């Protein structure tokens, strides 16, 4: 059971959160002008790295905030978490 650091509430049990996939994948402003390939890349393609990854979680059972956090996909180690639209901390790698 992961202990996920909510930037507002501190570390909480995984059961309080929902996963939101990779962070920093912005909704395209000009979706109508994108090619099918470009649009499909936004909808379906994520980087899925082995190792450190910035990802989104929402603290559903707590403060209800979406936030970003570094997580190592190999050993579940968490790096710093941070609020949306704030400076992204360096990868712990």
């Amino acid at each position, binding site marked *: *059971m*992961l*202990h996920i650091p909510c930037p507002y509430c501190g570390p909480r049990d995984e059961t309080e959160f*929902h996963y*939101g996939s990779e962070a920093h994948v*912005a*909704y395209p402003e000009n*979706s*109508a002008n*994108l090619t*099918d390939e470009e*649009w*499909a890349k*936004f*909808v*379906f393609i994520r980087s899925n790295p082995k190792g450190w990854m910035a990802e*989104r979680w*929402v603290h*559903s059972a707590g403060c*209800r*905030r*979406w936030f970003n956090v570094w997580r190592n996909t190999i*050993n*579940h*180690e*968490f790096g710093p978490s941070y609020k*949306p*639209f704030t400076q992204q901390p360096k990868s712990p790698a």
Partner: protein
Amino acid sequence: MSTVTFTFDGKQYTGQKGESLASALLRNGVLHFTDSSYKDRPRGVMGLWVEEPNALVNIDSGAGEPMVMSTTIEIVEGVVARSSQGVGDLPDTRDNSRYDKVNRHVDVLVVGAGTSGLEAAKKFADQGKSVIVMDDKPTAGGHLVYLGQPVPPELLSVLDRENVTFLPRTTVQGLYDQGYSVATERRTDHLDVNVHTEMSRIRTWHIRADHTVLATGAFQRHLVFANNDRPGIMLSHAAATYVSNGANPFRAAVVVTVDNQGYRDAVRLSQAGVTVNAIVDIRNNPSGPSVEAAKASGIQIITGKTAIDTCEKEDGTVKCVSVGNPDGTEAACVDGDLIAVSGGWTPVVHLATFIGIKPTWDAKLAAFVVKHSDSLTSTAGMLAGDFGDDDEAAIFFGPKLSTEQALVAFVDYQRDATYRDFKRAIDAGMRSIEHVKRYTAIGTAHDQGKTSGTVTMGLIGQAIGKAPDEIGSLTFRPPYISVPFAALAGRDRGLLSDPERTTPIHSWHVASGAPMEDVGQWKRPWYFPMPGESMHAAVLRECAAVREGVGVMDASTLGKIDIQGKDAGQFLDLIYTNMFSTLKVGMSRYGLMCGIDGMVFDDGVTTRISENHWLMTTTTGGAAKVLDWLEEWLQTEWPHLEVYCTSVTEQISTVAIVGPKSRELMRRLAPSLDVSNEAFAFMENKHVDVAGVPARIARISFSGELAYEINVPAIYGLHIWESVMAKGADLNITPYGTETMHVLRAEKGFVIVGQETDGTQTPDDLDMNWIVSKKKDDFIGKRSFSRADTARDGRHQLVGILADDGSYVIPEGAYIVAGADEKTAPPVKHIGYITSSYDSAALGRSFALALVANGLARKGEKIAIPMADRVVTGVITDSVFVDKENTRRDG
């Protein structure tokens, strides 16, 4: 020490209260405990604790438990045990014990209350940290307890400190990421009265520790020689401990050793009155204080030799051991009814390997050890390689054996896996412990290789000329020892296994005898049968009542989200496929939400309460998901929008009165309200007192009939329901459940998200193009509608299906095959499937909704549905069956 009576295999014995069942049986002279699982060879107890590979029993007293190690059972008066030949035997009686769970956060968790664990506890307690010390044995002290030596008071007293909690009989079963561990505490089995109605039998501890100290100690391991499994052959430390405590069925012993531990145990045996005929040491030049002590007590020491084989007495117990060179030569028997084997120590590395720490091989100790220290985890004691100064073990696991000897030289006792089995794995080319394990089943029994793991790795090394750490590493998985499922479940059983969510009107539904349907975690009334009425008859009656008179339904479970802010309209335009910002205050509108992939995600009615205040409803199961979704867009994409969302699902209770007579009933409930069609139009909302309670009435219909939804604060939900029932009595008001609701909406072709959809349907696929705005620049999902796959020909589309036999209700999920005249025997190509299917009172026949490839263009085509016992034929129709012109909703 008091005496207790216990039963083993139907025979009564006495033992000392609190000693292990294994110890008590030895005290009574029982050596032959059981027979082996596969080869029926007589077996006795080998070990002292959870490393025991042989002596399993079923417990028939107390709570009852299958397959437990007799070495771990503390006997109390009346224990009834049966020997177990490796197969569990669940008791027939119900286990009425309680099981529970406790969550605890702590600064430091110390696993193991031996000397090193107590030292660690003292260190952290001195720093003012909160400390929990767990040990799976009944008392603290570790090896000192076995040796009968006092635990230094300055260490023992740490357990009494205010910031220290000691949990004996508590086994850490799993260690996970970030200092999370799970332990089971045996709380009642050792008590005189061991079935309690209040106290849990086993408590599962969920611990979050900032730091975890692993001081888990070590187990002794055996050696692989021929006939090394006879009763009377034991691990030397175990034998010496039993005997020293007076559980001594032995007269003469031979100690076979690779280290100085054998010498210490020989001296203990000797002191307890067992004649030690010889210490057989594989080493040529043993040295150290223990060796000197054994020499001083006059015990014969044979060096450079080891056990090759054993002989049995008539009763199958061991008679003597043949001692020879490691290559098997020059073997000669030495008598002993106890063969005490010291094959070296195996530190308990399990918990460390659970979190990915790799043990390292210490050649001097002939052991895998874990020397580890970081902010989360550290190791101490024998686990960390601290064996004391008097130990230097030979790296030796067994002599060279002939083919015949290999057949009876056991590597894993419980699995009856022999050196011959092991050799076949090696000869088949396997080198990794993981491969050998799976080929031979070594290490897969209840003990999970606690003794056989290192032995197997050593044997592989010996066989191919490598050190054990070149073969691989020991890897274990939780749980550390077997755990009853009941312990892990704790209170999460029966009613408490999953929450039952109920509405304020639930008690009325239950009292009326309505069976409940599970909708997510909600309990919703399914239908309201009259006495003796079948479900089919009840649903037809309820449907007819709604279409011809008036029905009432509890719609309180719908998800509700209060949305406020000046940009709420703009936000809803982005979330829904249709337009909301133009909606007039006091009006409601049905909306469809899609994901970014353009697939339908949820639906519901949203009402504009005032200029900047909206109330969204979601599907019953979708409320939490939709709120997460709204917050996601507001927080991570459009934070500039001034919008706040608040869940009000349980704040509002909704009672829907539905049917042509609902207008008359509404008039009675709210006499001040003008209920005429002109004054209160479809999709309009009115605020008015109903039965003395402030209410919002919405003219929303999910059945096509004239309907009013009465929304009140939930504390008044039951009151409103009862008022509706009272005022509608002479109108023959008919409460109806989810089944009737489903039939009525399906007759109108209204989809249910999750029934007509599975996450792969666009609004177009559902024949709902009318709800997709052509005016809006963008909304979530829009761009995906023009993707090649979403726009392609041949997608599954929502249609109606009428079976030719109107009395037949096609099962939901049934596959549809094209053309009634086409081949219907497998293999066939299906063109779609049934999503909803009911008998209809309004139609006087059955009908169905279905998703069919290109279905909208195929209306009128014949189809066939192959069932197990027949082929059903029918025709594709429009998805709306009742009131296509929408005339009924206005009454």
